[in-house]
């Protein structure tokens, strides 16, 4: 088999692109799990929802409002979609998840799993399961960039940079700011943080909204790359859960690194042994579970 280094680099770049989405999604899962102790199975559905808010805003919102020429553009979608979906998350936390904190974690998982199925079901009813393409990609992000070793689509380069930027800002906000210190302390001992006068219930609600908003953000960024489909979330989330298991739930930086490197591993496998590309992450998961059950960055509990 002939392996050119161009081919390897090209697949690594594409893998990094996928990995950036894994990173944002597993980051949100880790933040939510840290404070709420809930494994948010609906995370993939919110990612899908994020992409659909962008798609609907671009194609359907104008006609609905009686202005056929109106399209909610990509930049607006980057901002509005996480807000809309984050707000939905806040609503879900306030009305449903809140009631489950006193019972076993399993109930939270079941509830969010149910929500994911409902959301996916609703969208399957109205949209094509094989996907609708999103045409709102801005002019400036069309075309390709010459990276010397390959011609790389401008939009993909942008999506890698943007995703990494968002990951870094989130990491910084949690690990290095005053507000983040409440979140870190709340993850360890929410009762005590509340006993110091911090409104922990509100913090929990906003954290869920934020985590869910991150998923929606990833959905918008992904929309121009993959076609927007009701099942895009459930396909993605299975891989992301494997990423989370490998990285361990404990650490923010851990979930970012794991997401990126597993994306690249996937890319690499595509060159070396393509049939294993879709399963290599799961092999890694089994390996890590056997050797370090708490995950690479996780702490034993």
């Amino acid at each position: 088999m002939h392996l050119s280094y161009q081919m390897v680099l090209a697949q690594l770049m594409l893998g990094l692109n996928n990995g950036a989405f894994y990173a944002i999604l597993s980051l949100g899962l880790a933040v939510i799990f840290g404070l709420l102790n809930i494994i948010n199975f609906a995370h993939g559905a919110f990612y899908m929802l994020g992409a659909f808010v962008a798609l609907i805003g671009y194609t359907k919102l104008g006609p609905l409002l009686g202005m056929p020429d109106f399209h909610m553009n990509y930049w607006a979608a980057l901002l509005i979609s996480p807000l809309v979906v984050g707000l939905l998350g806040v609503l879900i936390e306030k009305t449903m998840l809140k009631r489950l904190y006193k019972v076993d974690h399993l109930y939270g998982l079941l509830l969010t799993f149910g929500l994911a199925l409902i959301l996916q079901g609703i969208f399957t009813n109205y949209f094509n399961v094989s996907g609708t393409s999103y045409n709102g990609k801005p002019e400036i992000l069309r075309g390709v960039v010459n990276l010397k070793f390959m011609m790389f689509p401008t939009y993909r380069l942008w999506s890698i940079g943007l995703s990494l930027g968002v990951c870094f800002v989130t990491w910084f906000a949690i690990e290095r700011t005053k507000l983040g210190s409440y979140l870190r302390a709340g993850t360890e001992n929410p009762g005590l943080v509340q006993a110091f006068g911090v409104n922990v219930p509100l913090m929990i609600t906003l954290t869920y909204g934020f985590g869910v908003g991150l998923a929606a953000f990833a959905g918008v960024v992904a929309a121009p790359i993959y076609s927007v489909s009701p099942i895009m979330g459930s396909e993605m989330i299975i891989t992301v859960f494997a990423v989370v298991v490998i990285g361990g739930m404990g650490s923010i930086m851990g979930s970012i690194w794991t997401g990126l490197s597993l994306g690249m591993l996937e890319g690499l496998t595509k060159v070396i042994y393509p049939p294993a590309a879709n399963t290599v992450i799961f092999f890694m998961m089994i390996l890590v579970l056997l050797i370090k059950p708490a995950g690479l960055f996780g702490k034993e509990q």
Partner: protein
Amino acid sequence: MPEAPAKELLSISNLHAHYGESHILHGIDLSVRQGELVTLLGRNGAGRTTILKSILGLVERRTGSIRVAGQETIKLPPFRIARLGVGYCPEERGIFSRLNVEENLLLPPIIKSGGMSLTEIYELFTNLLERKKSMGTSLSGGEQQMLAMARILRTGADLLLLDEITEGLAPVIVQALGKLIRQLKKRGFTIILVEQNFHFAADLADRHYVVDHGTIVEMIPMEALGASMDRLSGYLGV
């Protein structure tokens, strides 16, 4: 001890507390005046820690009445109770391992004016200043205890609930804590001390409440302590 009877800062009546199926406190009545230092004495498991947790609403279910600075708190969430001016130093110290010393110190938000400034705190606790960038749980037990105390002095809380602060610490550190508590009392803090170390408590407190099986069995003012020693030994099992 204050000359004229000062106003009641905390008054508890008929407090019951539950964890799941177990009924821990059975009708506690207790009151603390402004500037007073009161201890809760009793064996392990008598319910002393639960009294402190109930004051902050950290138990699963509580009934009765708890008034802090005149306001009824039985229905309030913990963060609202804390904002009435209650500072809490838990038995396990509760130092956050993912926060460094300074972040731990600055974590509790300012709830009232009149707390100590950061400079004052670092003057009082010099080793915290030297180690402010270390992670919280890398400190020694004594230093962690000092940190747990220091962080509630900044916030303006005037009612301090201190749970077993001398537990497992070397005698020198216990002495330092005794000195600190005296200073705090002089500054006008109102303090409830849950203490296993009777001699430590006896020197400091204005009054002692003896807790047994979830009820208050006796209240002993400082002056009557000598005369009550025999009965007290019975309760404490010493």
